[in-house]
């Protein structure tokens, strides 16, 4: 059972986003109506563990339920499909009691068997069907159906993150029919059969997706004010890549909610009486990471120099707004186990210059640092999903240029980007962020076997020569294994300090998910990491 202290600390933390969700608790909700929601990107594969990708999460969160519900205000884990649960001492056994009478939209029951099958797939993957392992589940061993409404999960090693893991979109429960499909058939939303408040009605691949409210829905999280079926009748997702078109359409009343409002548009949106929602993602901050396997950035002094050459404050004030808080650590201040390391993240060109000199990188002609013939020229691909990432990197490049380091920003096609991002020589620097409300997020970000942003040896990146940081990996494994909450938080703090001391990462800002909505749109809520939830939302008449 999660201890009391979490809830308290979490409550404090949660205040920040409370504001937005609290906004429109007033007047009586109206039933019915169609919501037009403009997405920036089309969803990809909707296999729930792929829900980390925002457009995917935005859809999955409406059509699937989870075992548990993480209260976005308190971050406490509350019952949902699981009425109750027990965890053994060393977090290797979890037993869940399933709420009776829950059905998938195809009529099949959501019972212990279904849940077991779901987590077997997420925890172990499925080679035949090409289903990968979920990154939120670690050390998964097996499931055991005790009775039709009781299921038990066992783990090879302690897996503390699992309880929270059951609450994330990546653990959305889907019908056995869906799990029986090969992974690449799940690009089609209509194939995703969940038990959620909305059901996929129709879809034009890559362009438009229509969700309809499920009339018999009666199993929303118990503690929510809203119960029963969703207020809205229909949600229309329209993929609208053009920023100017999304904003224009919203202001012109052709849509009620849009995702990805750039900071520079916030002012005028608000000035026209529209609302900006910027729920935090509570994960790893929007930052620039190094690939130490590349000799140019192998030297700690170089990385530190660049860290101190980066003026994150300037970036935030130039490009962003109050909704994008300056980063004080590698994870968000709203994330669990956060420690304030702003003291180590100072902007200090002088120090940076000195470090580079010490590293043997002398200023050459045309103001570029050189070391035995090699010039200090680094390369990074922009990451389109991140807000104004191209601009951010350009600003970083401008700042680094001041200390004689050149950063080339590439705008590659997805293909080349993925290919090169796996090669530390081609991309010594990379932008990175991930949103998830659990310390384990750090592990999934840095651990070689998962996202492996530092490109250590042992991951998918076959081009890596030698770089491995056993100390870091050890810490990460420890986090995943540590059962005692306090110890765990301590480890989390340790990792943050270590990563900054090693200057593996230059945190820039805490990334929110920025939405804009028409004043008619009420009770717009978000799950813990900023994915929209339309369950309680409703449209006031014009």
């Amino acid at each position: 059972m999660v201890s009391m202290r979490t809830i308290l600390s979490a409550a404090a933390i949660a205040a920040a986003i409370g504001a937005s969700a609290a906004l429109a608790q007033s007047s009586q909700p109206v039933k019915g109506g169609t919501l037009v929601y403009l997405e920036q990107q089309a969803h990809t594969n909707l296999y729930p563990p792929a829900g980390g990708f925002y457009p995917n999460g935005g859809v999955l969160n409406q059509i699937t339920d989870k075992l548990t519900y993480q209260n976005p205000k308190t971050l406490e884990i509350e019952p949902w499909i699981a009425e109750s649960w027990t965890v053994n001492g060393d977090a290797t056994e979890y037993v869940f009691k399933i709420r009776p009478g829950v059905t998938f939209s195809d009529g099949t029951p959501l019972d212990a068997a279904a849940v077991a099958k779901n987590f077997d797939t997420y925890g172990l993957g499925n080679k035949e069907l090409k289903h990968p392992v979920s990154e939120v589940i670690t050390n998964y061993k097996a499931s055991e159906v005790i009775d039709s409404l009781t299921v038990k999960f066992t783990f090879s090693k302690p897996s503390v993150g699992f309880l929270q893991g059951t609450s994330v979109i990546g653990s959305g429960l889907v019908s056995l029919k869906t799990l029986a499909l090969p992974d690449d058939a799940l690009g089609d939303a209509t194939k995703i059969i969940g038990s959620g408040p909305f059901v996929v009605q129709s879809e034009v691949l890559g362009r438009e997706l229509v969700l309809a409210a499920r009339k018999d829905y009666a199993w929303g999280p118990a503690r929510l004010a809203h119960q029963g079926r969703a207020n809205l009748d229909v949600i229309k997702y329209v993929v609208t890549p053009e920023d100017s078109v999304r904003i224009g359409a919203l202001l012109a009343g052709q849509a009620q909610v849009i995702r990805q409002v750039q900071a520079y548009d916030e002012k005028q949106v608000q000035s026209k009486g529209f609302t900006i929602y910027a729920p935090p993602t509570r994960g790893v901050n929007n930052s620039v990471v190094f690939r130490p396997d590349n000799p140019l950035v192998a030297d700690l002094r170089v990385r530190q120099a660049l860290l101190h050459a980066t003026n994150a404050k300037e970036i935030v004030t130039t490009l962003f707004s109050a909704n994008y808080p300056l980063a004080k650590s590698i994870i968000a201040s709203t994330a669990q186990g956060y420690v304030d390391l702003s003291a180590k993240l100072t902007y200090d060109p002088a120090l940076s210059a000195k470090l580079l000199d010490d590293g043997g990188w002398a200023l050459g002609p045309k103001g570029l640092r050189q070391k035995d013939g090699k010039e200090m020229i680094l390369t990074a691909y922009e990451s389109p999903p991140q807000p104004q990432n191209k601009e951010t990197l350009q600003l970083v490049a401008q700042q680094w240029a001041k200390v004689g380091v050149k950063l080339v920003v590439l705008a590659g096609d997805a293909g080349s980007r993925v290919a090169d991002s796996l090669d530390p020589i081609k991309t010594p620097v990379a932008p990175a962020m991930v949103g998830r409300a659990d310390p384990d997020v750090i592990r999934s970000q840095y651990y070689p076997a998962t996202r492996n942003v530092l490109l250590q040896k042992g991951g998918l990146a076959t081009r890596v020569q030698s770089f491995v940081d056993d100390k870091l990996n050890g810490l990460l494994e420890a986090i995943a294994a540590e059962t005692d909450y306090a110890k765990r938080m301590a480890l989390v703090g340790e990792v943050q300090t270590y990563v900054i001391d090693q200057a593996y990462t230059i945190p820039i800002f805490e990334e929110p998910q920025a939405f804009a909505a028409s004043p008619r749109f009420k009770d717009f809520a978000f799950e813990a990491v900023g994915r929209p939830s339309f369950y309680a939302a409703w449209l006031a008449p014009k």
Partner: protein
Amino acid sequence: MTSRETGEDDLALIVEALPARPPWTARLKRLSPSLALSCLVIALVFTWTLLPQLFTGYSGTEGVPGEQLQPPSAEHVLGTDGLGRDLYARIVYGARYSLSGAFVAVAVGLLFGTLLGLIAGSRGGWLEALIMRLVDSLLAVPSLLLSLSIIVLLGFGTINVAIAVGAVSVARFARLARSEVVRVRRSDYVEAAFGSGGTFWAVLRRHVLPNSLTSVIALAALQFGSAILAISTLGFLGYGAPPPTPEWGLLIAEGRNYLSRAWWLTAAPGLVVVLVVLAADRISKSIQRSGA
């Protein structure tokens, strides 16, 4: 059948009245205002590429944080962009990339296209058939798909983008060059050249090339304009030169995101591109006429 060139002779009389080659001043006088303007535009843009610093004090790539997204004003004639970079400066410095890009593109098309067309048109036979089928299949692939693939293949960057755009225009040049060569080859003077003992290559060099080139050059001028557009379109699709290159297409493409907040960011470069392309088009037309 005999035919009479009526009216030709009195024209000849008029020509005789003039000196064999009018001095440039006289020719300048006969320059139409629109053509003069077009030349002026192109000339200006060229000086931009050579000496941008003469036209602006600001940097084309370095911004001043805190001065971002300012509307057009006294110190920032065309306003500033999201990074506080002076737009006018970016346009001036961008000329270099856009023009060099367009140039490479046209050069690629002109070189390979004309070569293919020349060979096809002058050699004829199976070789012509083969070349023209190749050219057709080049046209059969959607131009954008082709250039996108080529960029992915070559990697990003101003020059590669230009090459990709140029490769697409090879077909057009080849077809035109061929038809022109065929036209010229039919003419009496080419036969006469052979008749006076000229070798294939001599005739090609002395008559076929110079006489078929006029329209090809005209097309080149035209393509110059459309190359700028094509490059900007690729920029829009995210296949342009890497930032902070102030390439015009990129400026329009990036500016469009700020449309509802800062219209000038896309309006200004858009206008510049339109003007330059118009000028190129106008010049192309007059080349075409001078040839006819």
